[in-house]
């Protein structure tokens, strides 16, 4: 109970400070917007081509945006050594990870939901009929990115080459998420949409495995 109460308090703080500064959200949204617009100009997609490579480009943009977003999540805590204060205050360090994962998933989802109409317009695709399934894919994909990304961000923050280390560790680690999310999204963009439950199952298993690993070993990642 204390774990959830602490995680909720921490999540509230993350959301409050971000909406106060809007540093992460504005940067990420602008980044994804630029990537989506550049891709659409570069490839001049017809609807058929869009359905083939559009989802891949979209998830690639989300992945790069996530690596921008994840970098500061622990770096911010270094400014005044607030991470130490959190470790002293919470009984279970997993509460810190839960809150960071929750906040990163929320910010990433917000970016994705805002960018989805832009992508649909630029690439001339429509998947509104399958919106609940698209949102489920976005949720599971974002949760996977945020979970693995938060773990890697906590490691890279303590390294000297942290700006380089995060994408170097993160991008290969998230390749399975990228592939599964892309395949599911491609299925949903077809003229006769197909839900690939195998892909959804894979995303769910990925999320559960990483959450469990963080629950078991997260404490060691936060140590000095």
């Amino acid at each position, binding site marked *: 109970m*204390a774990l959830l*109460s*602490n995680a909720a*308090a*921490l999540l509230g*703080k993350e959301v*409050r*400070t971000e909406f*106060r*500064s809007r540093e992460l959200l504005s940067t990420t949204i602008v980044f994804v917007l630029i990537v989506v617009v550049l891709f659409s100009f570069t490839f001049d997609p017809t609807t058929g081509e869009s359905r083939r490579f559009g989802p891949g480009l979209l998830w690639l943009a989300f992945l790069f945006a996530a690596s921008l977003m994840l970098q500061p999540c622990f770096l911010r805590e270094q*400014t*005044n*050594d*607030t991470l*130490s*204060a*959190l*470790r*002293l*205050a*919470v*009984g279970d360090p997993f509460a810190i990870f839960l809150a960071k994962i929750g906040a990163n998933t929320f910010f990433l989802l917000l970016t994705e939901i805002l960018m989805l109409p832009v992508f649909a317009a630029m690439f001339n695709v429509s998947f509104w009929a399958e919106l609940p399934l698209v949102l489920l894919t976005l949720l599971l994909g974002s949760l996977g990115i945020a979970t693995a990304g938060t773990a890697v961000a906590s490691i890279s923050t303590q390294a000297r080459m942290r700006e380089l280390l995060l994408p170097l560790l993160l991008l290969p680690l998230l390749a399975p998420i990228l592939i599964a999310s892309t395949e599911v999204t491609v299925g949903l963009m077809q003229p006769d949409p197909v839900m690939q439950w195998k892909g959804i199952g894979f995303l769910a298993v990925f999320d559960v495995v990483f959450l469990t690993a963080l629950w078991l070993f997260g404490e060691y990642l936060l*140590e*000095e």
Partner: protein
Amino acid sequence: MAPAAANSIGLRFEKVEKRYGAVYALRNLTLAIAPRECVALAGRNGSGKTTLLRIASRLTRPTRGTLEFSENSKEKTPSVGFVAHATMVYDELSAEENLLFFAKLLQIPNRKERVAELLREVGLAERRDSLVRTFSRGMRQRAAIARALLANPSLLLLDEPATGLDPEATSWLTEHLRKLRDAGCTILMSLHGDSEVARLATRAVRLEAGSVAADTHSGATFQSVFLFSGN
């Protein structure tokens, strides 16, 4: 308001060693601190004072050796208040928001009243709604001290707590620490030179190159620990 009586906690560092790569921060250090003791740590920069405090707070794990809390402490996990070099408060939150946030994490009952009381005591009541990033160094330090005192800790660790404080705030800190010490709180603090706060100490320990070089209780040799520390 006088601080509530705290559970007394003793500490025992047994052959503690801490290495950062090839550099030794602490070497084979053995030090026992009795419950209710107020210990001043002295020593040159890099002598291991901060590392010792961070190990005592359990934020840092020793490379070798053990840290034990006294068996007669009532709490399984002692409540630790830590004032470090960094303020450990969020720049993007106000002083009140910071304290309310940490009070919530620490599950302090009547937290609004406790936070209001501490803000008044540290002299930040009028600036309670200002963001910490607009504060001077001294005001940030006051916020840091208020955060450390939130839970009426049974063990208080202070790393040069008077840094940035004006004489009035230093006097308040000294008086508050005196009350905490008298209420049974164990205090371990690193200090630069003999000062108003140092006079609270019932024992002074000088570290040199990560080991205890001098250990004395109040008396004729007490001040020499600071004089020889080179600070």
